[in-house]
């Protein structure tokens, strides 16, 4: 089994324990890299290049049906990353469907009313969607923990009822006949490109001093405030950055389905980012992205099981939570940076 650190030498009689040894560059320093050989450059570059290469390779070789799955994995990955980015700023959202739905309806409305093409609606829906979500949630940004989460849970459910009751934006019928993408190739390149941009972009932000302030707010916002930093303003910015990507994911789906309707505010879009983060590992951006690329294809693969699908899906999740609570990404990262060996323990 996985033993943490020095393991449980006190309890059993074994004379050995697992020792963790840092590998390569990480052994010398946490973040001051002294690159001296190709080996080390490759050591650092490999985990960054790997997702890029694998994704574009998959985009080339998969059959058409699975190419579509790849597209939705990438889009849900973006949604999951936007969720995780909020977590990094100390905001736990139970309503990622709000971002997704607002973006989806904005793109749909832009095309429905004014006939704007997808390359215009995507960036506009993203920026405007991020802004709208930030404004909607701004009054509750002061709330911490579960109180903020509850409001995010309620908002998308409210919006969908408003659309139903007022028959605005197509009402229950939704808006159909939205412009699609010119081809599956464009769809693939665009979704994978957006996915990689979000992945590296968010990780880059979190690595800067600005990102450190966000993480400081998560750990202890009072310390941040007493340094003369307006924590609420930072939270609003985090919300905007997350909202933009969430809305972009929604806008993309509107054009991919050539339709937008009330289901974009469904609870599924709120839950999937959370499950993806649980599987992949929270607080790393890459974790939830990885999680989405496991869960979305899994969900498709289980389609053949019919009604039992959700049961197997649930069992898989439970196994993951129990077996690997830290998340897949954190586990892989540790394995990559360290190796374990058995050493004798003096008793």
């Amino acid at each position, binding site marked *: 089994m996985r033993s943490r650190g020095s393991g449980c030498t006190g309890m059993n009689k074994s004379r050995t324990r697992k020792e963790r040894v840092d590998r390569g560059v990480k052994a010398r320093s946490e973040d001051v890299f002294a690159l001296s050989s190709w080996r080390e450059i490759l050591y650092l570059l490999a985990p960054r290049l790997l997702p890029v290469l694998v994704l574009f390779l998959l985009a080339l070789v998969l059959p058409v049906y699975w190419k579509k799955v790849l597209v939705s994995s990438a889009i849900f990955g973006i949604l999951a990353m936007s969720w995780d980015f909020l977590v990094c700023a100390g905001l736990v959202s139970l309503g990622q469907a709000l971002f997704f739905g607002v973006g989806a309806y904005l793109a749909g409305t832009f095309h429905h009313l004014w006939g704007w093409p997808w390359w215009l609606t995507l960036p506009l829906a993203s920026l405007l969607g991020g802004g709208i979500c930030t404004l909607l949630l701004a009054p509750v940004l002061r709330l911490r923990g579960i109180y903020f989460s509850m409001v995010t849970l309620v908002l998308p459910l409210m919006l969908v009822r408003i659309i139903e009751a007022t028959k605005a934006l197509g009402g229950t019928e939704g808006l159909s006949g939205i412009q699609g993408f010119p081809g599956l190739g464009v769809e693939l390149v665009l979704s994978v490109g957006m996915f990689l941009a979000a992945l590296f972009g968010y990780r880059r932000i979190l690595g800067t*001093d600005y990102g450190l302030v966000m993480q*400081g707010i998560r750990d*202890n916002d009072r*310390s941040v405030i*007493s340094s003369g930093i307006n924590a609420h303003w930072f939270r609003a910015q985090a919300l905007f950055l997350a909202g933009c990507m969430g809305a972009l994911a929604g806008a993309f789906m509107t054009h991919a389905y050539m339709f937008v309707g009330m289901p974009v505010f469904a609870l599924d879009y709120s839950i999937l980012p959370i499950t993806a983060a649980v599987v992949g590992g929270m607080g790393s951006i890459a974790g939830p992205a990885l999680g989405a690329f496991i869960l979305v294809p899994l969900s498709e693969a289980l389609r053949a099981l019919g009604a039992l699908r959700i049961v197997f899906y649930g069992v898989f999740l439970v196994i993951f939570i129990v077996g690997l609570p830290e998340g897949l990404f954190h586990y892989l990262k540790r394995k990559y940076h360290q190796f374990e060996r058995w050493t004798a323990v003096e008793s």
Partner: protein
Amino acid sequence: MQSPILQVRELTKDFGGLRAVDRVSFELGEGESVGIIGPNGSGKTTLVNLITGFVKPDSGEVRFRGKVITGMPPYCIARMGVARTFQMARPFYNLAAYKNLVVPLFSPRVRSLLGGGYGDRDTVALDLLEEVGFERDSSVPYKPASVLPHGYLKRLELARCLAIRPDLILLDELFSGLSLAEVASTVPIIEKLQMEGRSLILIEHRLRELFRIVDRVIVLNFGQKIAEGNPREVMDSDEVKRAYLGTEADG
């Protein structure tokens, strides 16, 4: 006394039916150090929260360098140069110790004080940690705050407070939980701050150490100021003895 850096007038705060701080007034001169003592629950921490804006008073006012700061949001008060430590040292657990200081160094106050030319925040952070006694050449500054022992966390908290180069520093039980050796190594840091002319308010239960540092003490009991003055005189007053040690201390 020199011109006051801080004036507290008739400050009052109720929590429900409990009067936590009751018409407390005092002044602090530029460069002066004052200790605030009192039994548990006497309103010391609430007083710090009121001054730094984390809690809004029901009545009374606080002036910093003549300007009324009551009602201002806490981050604005901090930007003016009022820094504090928290009683419970809660660092940014997920960040390395020196990265903990990069966060306050991001403050607009630091940027406006030092301009753009203060170089890399990481270097400034490591310098600050060295000032509060983190061994520069060891691995300690690079360790995540979550694995640091309590003594280091307290000094990290002090460094976080000093990072924004405050003029008025409020230290809420800085010595609590520290060993005698750790206290002994922390006192020179505070004395250095005094020599630099910073004004200090110390809340402390470790009276022996406190009395060596401060010019004056204020004693709180049930939210009221019951005594103020030279440490020795104050501790000789009967009312303080009763409040501090219970009624049996009369004998």
